[in-house]
């Protein structure tokens, strides 16, 4: 089955059909949940990365700040994923043909990989080299805000 056929069958599945016929208010709730997850995730990312850049909450060590915000990052991602699913399912074929949907998917995969590898590694070291810390921060910020920006652009092209 091609990807297009897959998206087609997703959109016309029983689950999606029932979602489509729900009240429009439901769509608004899904989007607001998406925004909530977005703020939880991005605020945490901003805080830790600013710290890696040597500014912001300098009263904390990088390790402590990363540890404190970790739960917000994962709660945020969970809310984003669940609400994202509700947004995606009833209109899968519309997203399929939207180039920025695919850009977002690629950036998201990259962001999560960096989050679980480089970011996690740098934020658990006592004294990361300044160059490593700063480049990790920049990369993390660019990727995550890139996900957010491309997500917003999807809406403009739909």
């Amino acid at each position, binding site marked *: 089955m091609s990807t297009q056929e897959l998206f087609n069958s997703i959109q016309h599945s029983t689950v999606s059909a029932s979602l489509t016929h729900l009240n429009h208010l439901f769509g*608004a709730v899904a*989007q*607001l949940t998406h*925004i909530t997850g*977005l*703020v*939880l995730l*991005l*605020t945490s*990312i*901003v*805080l830790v990365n*600013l710290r890696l850049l040597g500014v*912001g*909450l*300098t*009263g*904390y060590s990088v390790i402590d700040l990363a540890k*404190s915000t970790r739960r917000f990052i994962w709660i945020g991602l969970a809310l984003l994923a669940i609400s994202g699913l509700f947004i995606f399912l009833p209109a899968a074929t519309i997203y399929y043909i939207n180039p920025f949907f695919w850009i977002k998917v690629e950036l998201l995969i990259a962001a999560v990989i960096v989050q679980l590898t480089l970011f996690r590694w740098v934020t658990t070291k006592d004294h990361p080299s300044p160059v490593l810390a700063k480049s990790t921060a920049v990369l993390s910020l660019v990727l995550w*805000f890139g996900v*957010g*920006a491309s997500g*917003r*652009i999807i809406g*403009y092209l739909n």
Partner: protein
Amino acid sequence: MSLIGFAQVLYDSEIGTAIRESLFVFPFIEGTHLLTLSISVGLIALVDLRLVGLFFRDTPASQLIRQLRPWLLGGFAVQFVTGLLLFWSLATKVIELPVFWLKLAVILLAGINLLWFELKLARNIGEWDSQQIPPKAVRFAGWASLGFWIVVVISGRLIPYLQY
């Protein structure tokens, strides 16, 4: 000049029209307005969580506020400027929406709450700075702030939703 008259002037202006009919500028301004939530509302929520004693409890509240202040100010400044430009381009449309006025009213309430905090409660911050659970009045200000900004974000999201 009436409100509608003023809104019409903004809407018809060169800047308002240019923004509204642009391919990239409007999306850029609106996208920035959205993503900057992480620096404005996100950071203020963090301070509020400290004030209600739910987060960063071992940090003196004054230290948290002091270190985040420049980022909060910058974040809200961007929020304000992008919001102003959005209003400029859509003035006549949004003034018809009750949810827009709700958003402005609650922003005003949040501002009053902030003033009350700064002028009255932060005066003797030394007394409760290191307390994990600050005094009742401080917690009230924290919860109020959280509540207000949640309503602001929800009503903000509903503006484009109810516009069409």
